[in-house]
Every structure is written in structure tokens, then in C-alpha cells.
């Protein structure tokens, strides 16, 4: 099992290349397909023979209602993230810093809810929202989304707060801050990177939600982007507009990919914060 250092190095490069190709090849295929003309969509060459933006123009055409779906997604995912972050910041601080009875039980319960099958709460909520006339409203999508975004945010933020040295608050409190002031003036500014990371992870989770958005809406103008693209259909029943679907897929994914590229270090730290203890 002794390999020469040179061979080892090349094997490692090959391994890295394989991992990158595994992750990016399907995404690259979506991008390439979205740039093809409708006439050569079934052309399986690695590069588009002629780059065309006709698919993007078709998707962004006002009559397609896809821009409205993107806006709906921004509203639903944005409000969900904001609400979850506000609640989770306070709770996570208590979990990381304060001593109280049943703390472990409470934290376990909160984390357990994030593993809950969404369909189990969606069925009764759908019935309730039908009675309340909440179908095709933003709140019908935001409220159930809290069930998985809030535990996710609490879990992430608790891990971040735990990593901050306790001496920070002690110093502030010795200097005359109350616990509340120490929290507001010392902890929150220093935890800003953690809160920001949690915001990204929570936003991505809310943005990608499908089951709730599918069940709670039946009007096209209230659908979120993932639901809207799943319902794209061609002029006839037998023609699937693959080009437009890929273009829409790229548009829904690009904001997330840019966020991931910019903040990859932080996101990885946030995702693994709880697991690698």
C-alpha cells in the first residue's frame, strides 16, 4: 500500500476533480440547456452551438407570471426568515447562556420538531385554512414554514452563541452592564456573523419549500417560484418546454448559488456547527 508521493498527488487531484464534477455537472447541464435555442434543445453537445437567450425572455415575459412567482417567493421566504431569526436569537441565547431546569428537554423538543414530517401538520392546517379563508394568502405559507425554519435557526444560533467566550459578557457586566445590555451591546454585534449565516441557511430552507406552497395555493398569481416552475407546461399537452424550465430553474437557483459562493466559509461553519462537537 505504499504509493510514490507523485502518484498520490495525482490520485488526490483526480479525486478532487471527481468531487467537483459530481457536484457541478448536472448544474452545468441545466445552464447549457437553458442557453440553447428551442430548435436544438435536444442537441447533446457540451457547449451550445449558438447561445440564445430566448428561453429567458420567454420565462420573464409578463404573461408567464413567473416574475410574480419570484416576488411571492421573496416575500414568503423573507418574512419567514425574519420572524424565525427574531424569535430564535432570544431563545438560542437562553439555551447557550442561562441555566434553567428542563433546558435539555426543551432544546431536544425544539430540534425534534424540525425533523417532523411537514405533511403531518400540512393536512390539518390545510383544513383549518380552508375554513378560515386563508387559501391563496401569504400567511398560509409563512405560518406552516415556521415549523421547520424556527428550529433550524434556534439550533444554528445556539451553536454559535456557545462558541462565544463567556468572559465577554462577564467583562461587560463587571463594567456595569445589565445582562440585557450585555446581550444587546456586546453579544449581538459579535454574533452578527453567526446571525447572518443562520439567516442565509434559514432563507435557503424557506425558499426551497415546496409541499406547503403547493398545497396552500391554487391561483397561479399566489404560487411561489418552485411551485410555478413545476407547473410550467407547453403549448400542447405533449410538448414539454424543457428550455424554459431550465431557464426558470437557473433563475430560481442563481441567487442561492451567488450567496453560497460569497459566504461559503460561513455557511459550512454554520451547517456543521451542531454536528461536529
Amino acid at each position, binding site marked *: 500500500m505504499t504509493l510514490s508521493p507523485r502518484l498520490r498527488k495525482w490520485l*488526490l487531484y483526480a*479525486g478532487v476533480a471527481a*468531487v*467537483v464534477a*459530481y457536484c457541478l455537472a448536472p*448544474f452545468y*447541464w441545466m445552464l447549457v*440547456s437553458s442557453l440553447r435555442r428551442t430548435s436544438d434543445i*435536444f442537441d*447533446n453537445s457540451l457547449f451550445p452551438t449558438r447561445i440564445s437567450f430566448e428561453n429567458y425572455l420567454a420565462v420573464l415575459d409578463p404573461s408567464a407570471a413567473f416574475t410574480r412567482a419570484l416576488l411571492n417567493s421573496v416575500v414568503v421566504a423573507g418574512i419567514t426568515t425574519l420572524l424565525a431569526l427574531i*424569535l430564535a436569537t*432570544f431563545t438560542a441565547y*437562553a439555551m447557550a447562556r*442561562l*441555566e*434553567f*431546569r428542563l433546558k435539555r428537554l426543551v432544546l431536544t423538543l*425544539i*430540534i425534534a420538531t424540525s425533523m*417532523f*414530517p*411537514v*405533511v*403531518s*401538520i400540512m*393536512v*390539518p*392546517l390545510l*383544513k383549518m385554512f380552508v375554513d378560515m379563508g386563508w387559501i391563496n394568502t401569504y400567511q398560509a405559507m409563512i405560518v406552516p414554514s*415556521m415549523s421547520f425554519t424556527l428550529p433550524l435557526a434556534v439550533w444554528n444560533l445556539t451553536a454559535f452563541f456557545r*462558541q462565544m*467566550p463567556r468572559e465577554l459578557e462577564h467583562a461587560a*457586566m*463587571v463594567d456595569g452592564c*445589565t445582562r*440585557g*445590555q450585555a446581550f444587546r451591546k456586546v453579544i449581538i454585534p*459579535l454574533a452578527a*456573523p453567526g446571525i447572518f449565516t443562520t439567516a442565509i441557511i434559514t432563507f435557503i430552507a424557506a*425558499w426551497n419549500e*415546496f*409541499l406547503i406552497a*403547493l*398545497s396552500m395555493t391554487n391561483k397561479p398569481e399566489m404560487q411561489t417560484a*418552485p*411551485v410555478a*416552475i*413545476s407547473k410550467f407546461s407547453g403549448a400542447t399537452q405533449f410538448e414539454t418546454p*424543457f428550455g424554459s424550465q431550465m431557464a426558470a430553474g437557473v433563475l*430560481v*437557483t442563481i441567487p*442561492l*448559488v451567488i450567496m*453560497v459562493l460569497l459566504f461559503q466559509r460561513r455557511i459550512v461553519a454554520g*451547517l*456543521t456547527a*451542531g*454536528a*461536529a*462537537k
Partner: protein
Amino acid sequence: MVMTQNSPARPRAAASFAPPRRRRRRATSGSARLAALLVSPTLLVLTVVVLYPTIVALKDSLFGTPGLDPKTGFVRDTDPFVGAENYTAIFGDAADRFWNAFWNTTFLTFTTVALETVIGVAMALIMHRAFQGRALVRASILVPWAIPTAVSGLLWRWIFNSDGIANTLTGQHVLWTTEGFHAQVAVIIADVWKTAPFIGLLVLAGLQVINKEVYEAARMDGASPLRQFWHITLPLVKPALMVAVLFRTLDALRMFDLPYILIGAQKTSVETLSMLAQDEAANVRFGPAAAYAVILFLYVFLIALAFVRLLGANVVGDDESGPKRGRWLPRRRTEVAA
């Protein structure tokens, strides 16, 4: 509000440094009150959006659908009480569809999680060794994770199209997205692609906290790389791996988006319990839908319990796993301060 409630905290803080016993106890009760104040909004929201619907689902599952009353011949507006009928139906009228969905869910969960674990661990081992291009690898590994499952479903439907790239590359003419075993294969491939990198990330984090000296000692003793992996790496990375596998398993058990978009609704080969419950609810048969939702919930709960009890997955990750945290702290601290 939080701030004013705790305003006389200065002497309290001093007390925690030089503690006369009585004052310290008072400080603890004060922090308990503060904790209750900080935690209760979250618990309230989770009660409203998770606990209450679960109880309602239990109740709903005991009611049938409105329609013609067989006894009176009148049309009912309200849901009739049917007792355990929705549950007994899974051994009678609805048996075929329910058990099919149940086995699909179990089969897809088992195969996807097994494949993801193997590929994820392999990815983590490669990433752990790679020093050049680490940023590139980390960025690319986050791409499948960030892509919405709905989009990945569409993307793979295009790849698995009859004239698509999958058939071109393999030289086959499989109609992947039609009913049959190949539809399950398509779902498995698409799911593994999206989630194996996530396991890779969590395992990599576990690998990074292993002390290098352990490997040096093993090498001195003449342990082969394979033995090192089996007897050092795997046991030490087990806690991180357990959490990753638990999360993936529970997530796979509620699989919905991917088969729904990649193959379609009401397809026997890939219909999962989530899809079955959603389909019933969308067709206003709330009683049976609630019964399926309750069964899925119990199934997920039992599997989670088995993980925590039998395999000792520590999800909460609190102070009990102490010694490793020390090594994480200094690095993280600089990151937070930066």
C-alpha cells in the same frame, strides 16, 4: 422589555463572581425567569404550528368525508365520525395503495441513505486531504445542497428524458420517467446527487477535529491505511456521521418534492407516504389524509427514537461531549472576531 426586567443585575453579576450562597440562588431564579421569557415565544409558536395541528390531525383521522349517508340517504355537510375506520382501511380497502407507499418510502429511504453515506464519506476523505483548491471544492459541494429540490426534480427529468443526456451517454433507450423500477432508480440517483455532499460536509467537519498524532502513532505501529481508516477514522468520526445519517434518514422518510416532480403524482412505483397523504388532502378527503399523516409521524418518531437509543446519536450536542470543544474554540473565536 427584556432589558428592563433585569435591570438590578449589577450586584447579581458581582454575586456570581464572589458568591455568598443565598444571593447566588436568587441569581439562578432570576435567570430562570429571564430564560422563560426568552424561550416562551418560540415554544408558543411551535405549539401553534406543530403541536396543535398534530392533535387536530389525530382528531381528524377519526372522521370520514362528507357525502351521502348510507343509513339515512341524506347528503351530509359535516364530516361524519367513523372511529378507527380510516386506520382499519389500511388493512382493507386502501391496503394496496397504503402498503405500496409504505414500502416505497422505506425502500427509497434505505437505498438513498446507504448510497449517500458511502459517497459522502468518500468525498469527505478526499476533501480532507486536499489542500489546494479547497475553496473551489467547498463552493461546488454547496451547489447541490442549495438547489431547490423542485428545480433538481425538473433538472433530472430533463436529464432522464427519453432523448436526454442520460440515455445518450449510456447508449440506452430507457423511458426513465415512466412507471417501473427505472423510475425508482431515477429518483434514487437524483436524491443521492443532491444530498451526498451534505453528508460529506458533516463528516469532513468530524474529520477535522481528529488529532493528527493518533495517525502518527498508528503509522509507527505499522498500521496500513485501510486499518487506520477502519480502526481510527471511522470510530472517531462516528458521532458526526450518526447525526448526518439521522438527519438524512428522517428527511428521506418525508420525501415528497423529488418523486412528485421527477416522476409525477399518483405513480405507483414512487408514491411515498407524504405524497399519498398530500394527494388525499388535496382531494378533500381529510380523514384518510390525517390518518396517513399520523402513521407517517409515528414511523418517523420510532426511527428517530431507535437512532438515539440504539446508536447513541447525540443531536443536541451540548456540553457533555466536552474535550473536543476545546480544540474548536480558538479557531472559531478568531473567525467570530474577524
